[in-house]
């Protein structure tokens, strides 16, 4: 493909030359010159179009772990850029996939339900994302314990840190292992350019209360309130030199808090034994007006010196779940926190061979707490109800080594 502009130019130049010579015998010189000028203009325009199409094509690395044009990658890969994320006011990875994704479907209950699922290739399962693989700069974000992954605010990647997202549709298990069954979502973070950048962002969203029909209303009833969702972000991308090597420092931090608007559901009679709404003993009704709170602070830091790159990510995610178990129970909540660290060394040991070594360690925790009196959740005898808790702590460490060999090089 790279040869094409030159080839096109050569072919067109020959064609123009031949045409001009043939016409020379029959037309006045001025006409031939004008014709040549027009042909040259056309060539130039076509050349520019060719260059534009080359520059417009994404370079992707997810399909075969090496840089290649998206059109020649051995899988369907599309890219969502930071510019697109900014233009459309997108604030999380799931929003980006839902709004800009192709062939991928995000099932996103609101924050008061547990779980978020992503489907691709016509498959979507309520399995907490076990069939997709999510990577941030090559670091696996799926829990090493359950295989689950969340891609909303709980992923813990500040949106300003994102440079682009590559989405590879289809199975990628040959390269990436068991989670990569329907799609691989690879988030690449920004790196500093020639100049240091410090950035601070803030955002506020306001929402009115919602009535039982889903229409906005004014907050005048008990428990009704307007919602506020705000976020602060701060980041620095600093290039510098250290001990004769190029070095880069990237720090991005974000705080998101959602004090939701109130939303109303019909009130169901829970007094009958088999009504289906008697989730907690003593409650005569289920439903009414509720709201939730969500907090999601996250920080991502990366230090590159020469061929070494140290990266650390930490995040906390909390939201309460008024629809799970006892209605609007302030104790119902989902909580996640994680700390991840890796050190990458990537260097060409010979011009033909690149060796990448990456030790990594993850500490993750997911927990859920709800109140019930149904036998599925409580032990026998807990007839007055119980607090159902489940949690999944994950600790993992490993070493990844990748050797890439290009045996077709004629080096000197």
């Amino acid at each position, binding site marked *: 493909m*790279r*040869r094409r*502009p*030159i080839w096109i*130019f*050569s072919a067109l*130049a020959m064609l123009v030359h031949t045409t001009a010579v043939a016409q020379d015998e029959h037309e006045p010189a001025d006409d031939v010159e004008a014709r040549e000028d027009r042909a040259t203009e056309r060539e*130039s325009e076509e*050349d*520019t179009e060719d*260059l*534009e199409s*080359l*520059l*417009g*094509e*994404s*370079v*992707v690395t997810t399909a075969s772990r090496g840089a290649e044009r998206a059109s020649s990658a051995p899988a369907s890969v599309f*890219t969502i*850029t*930071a*510019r697109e994320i900014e233009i459309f006011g997108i604030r999380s990875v799931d929003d980006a996939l839902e709004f800009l994704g192709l062939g991928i479907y995000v099932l996103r209950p609101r924050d008061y339900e547990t779980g978020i699922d992503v489907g691709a290739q016509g498959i979507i399962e309520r399995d907490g994302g076990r069939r997709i693989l999510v990577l941030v700069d090559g670091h696996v974000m799926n829990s090493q314990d359950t295989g689950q992954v969340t891609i909303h605010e709980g992923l813990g990647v500040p949106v300003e840190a994102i*440079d*682009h997202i*590559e989405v590879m549709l289809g199975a990628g298990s040959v390269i990436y292992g068991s989670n990569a069954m329907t799609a691989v979502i690879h988030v*690449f973070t920004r790196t500093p*350019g*020639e100049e240091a950048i410090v950035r601070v962002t803030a955002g506020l969203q306001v929402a009115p209360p919602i009535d039982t029909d889903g229409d906005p209303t004014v907050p005048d009833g008990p428990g009704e309130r307007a919602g506020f969702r705000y976020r602060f972000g701060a980041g620095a991308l600093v290039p510098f*030199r250290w001990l*004769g090597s*190029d070095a880069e420092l990237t720090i991005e931090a974000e705080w998101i808090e959602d004090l939701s608007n109130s939303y109303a559901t019909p009130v169901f009679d829970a007094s009958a034994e088999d009504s289906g709404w008697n989730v907690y003993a003593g409650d005569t009704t289920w439903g009414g007006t509720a709201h939730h709170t969500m907090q999601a602070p996250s920080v991502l830091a990366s230090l590159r010196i020469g061929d070494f790159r140290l990266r650390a990510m930490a995040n906390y995610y909390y939201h309460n779940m008024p629809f799970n178990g006892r209605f609007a129970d302030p104790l119902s909540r989902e909580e996640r926190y994680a700390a991840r660290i890796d050190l990458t060394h990537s*260097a*060409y*040991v*010979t*011009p*033909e061979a690149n060796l990448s070594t990456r030790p990594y360690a993850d500490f993750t925790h997911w927990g859920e707490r709800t109140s019930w009196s149904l036998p599925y959740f409580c032990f026998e005898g807990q007839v007055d109800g119980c607090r159902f808790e489940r949690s999944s702590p994950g600790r993992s460490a490993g070493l990844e080594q990748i050797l890439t060999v*290009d045996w*077709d*090089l*004629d*080096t*000197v």
Partner: protein
Amino acid sequence: VRYERGFERGSDRDAIVLVVHRANNAESQRVSAQLVRALGRVRSLGGRPLRVLRHAYEDEAALRTELDRRTPTVVYFSAGFGRDIPAITRAVGTRNVITVSAVGRDVDRGIVIGFELSSSRPQIAINFGRARRQDLEFSAQLLRLARVVR
């Protein structure tokens, strides 16, 4: 090179591309070998017969000598030259030669044209001031598509 207006003026000469790498840097050697391999499939550059030469960078003086001896049309610097760009710029001086780097950031330091990735999209960077000092005149069509450093 088709977008550099002076290129066609020398259409009676071969287009000489000097590919420069760092002798002790494996990545630099890899990038230069990849380019030489790609150029090996091309017989002409902008309608002129193409000759590809290689040079292992040692220092400013050796590069200046090589430029005098070979009189290249294009000098391509592969990876790993970050801290040597000021010396390279001095060696090139005001020669009418298109300096190209595989690293976009080198353009900010004095190379005329570089290639970089911006949010996964390839981008051309052009040092406009440096191009003028080297008597290079790029078409507006190319400048429209490039990140221009003044």
